[in-house]
């Protein structure tokens, strides 16, 4: 990764989180009681607890609000998706296990070193 790209990436991340802090504060103070009746009259610590979510997940809840997506979709069983994910990820992990054995770094010993230069390895 180039230095310029890394700088840009970290700058973007910082910008995202600063925006998140602003949106997050708005969310916990004004929006939460409107989005969920359960948040009406909830305590200070509840607001503190949902703040990190409001700050980090702001694109998710913001677009949800803008698009007025139906929030209450009927619950579905997700077992099949679990299984599909595992069927994809498990072979990949097995592959990385085998790969990690193959790429293990080994430094061959040197037998041409002048004896006068040798020192004990545990120092």
């Amino acid at each position, binding site marked *: 990764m180039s230095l310029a790209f890394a700088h840009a990436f970290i700058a973007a991340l910082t910008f995202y989180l600063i925006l998140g802090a602003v949106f997050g504060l708005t969310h916990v103070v004004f929006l939460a009681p409107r989005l969920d009746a359960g948040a009406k009259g909830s305590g200070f610590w509840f607001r503190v607890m949902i703040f990190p979510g409001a700050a980090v997940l702001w694109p998710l809840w913001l677009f949800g609000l803008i698009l007025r997506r139906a929030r209450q979709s009927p619950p579905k069983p997700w077992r099949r998706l679990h299984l599909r994910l595992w069927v994809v990820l498990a072979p990949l992990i097995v592959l990385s296990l085998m790969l990690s054995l193959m790429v293990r770094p080994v*430094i061959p010993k040197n037998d041409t*070193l002048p004896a006068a230069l040798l020192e004990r390895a545990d120092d």
Partner: protein
Amino acid sequence: MTDKNGFFIGYADGLPAPDRRFLLGAGLAAIAGPAFAGAKLAAHQMPVGSGHWNQAKILTLHGRVVQNPYPVLRTDGLDGTLRSVALVCSSKCGVDAQLAVFADKPVYVRGSVIKRGRHLLLAVVENAPWIGASDENLADEPVYVQDMGRITLNGEILDAKCWSGAMRPGRGKTHKSCASLCIRLGGAPWFVAPAAQGKRTIMVLAGPKGEAIRQEVLPFVGEPVRAKGRLVRLDDQVQFRIDPARIQMI
């Protein structure tokens, strides 16, 4: 609110009897298991070496500074014999810039000693003046140079300061990016070459003419490499002069 038939409800106050017994067992296992795993994993780790950095003790050493090609203080202030003490930053940077004025002149340097085996470094005090002209009468012996011939060696490139005790462990994969960062920002690359019977050699890594190489070796830091070059003794340091363009990954 517990069901009579022994049905678990988390917020209910009582637990059904079979659940209680099972969960007691599971709870004990959840404490004993991790303790055993932690002990086993910890005891299996590689030795991290005897490197040590005594940061609490600030010394003032008198001697002459040379670029060999990385900054070295030639001093007899530590054990009475003339030693090459590598000068390094306390953080991740280089000290070269401040040294040009003092080249080959008697100086004093303030810092803390990093020591591993017979290798000595001085981490200079960064937040205060750490170098100045010395009024001590110091002998100006020329650097002892001995060409030890060409050699091909397998080994690992690491950062002098980290390996010598600033980090424990200061080698290997988990330390690779730290070593790269240190060398990138002005640290000295050293080369450790393993030999048979638990022995090894530590060398200062330099270019073909004994010049400093840093950015050129970055891709190879912390990995098994093979390099062809010349061994040159400079006082009590050994230099491995190589062409960085011809370093090979093993």
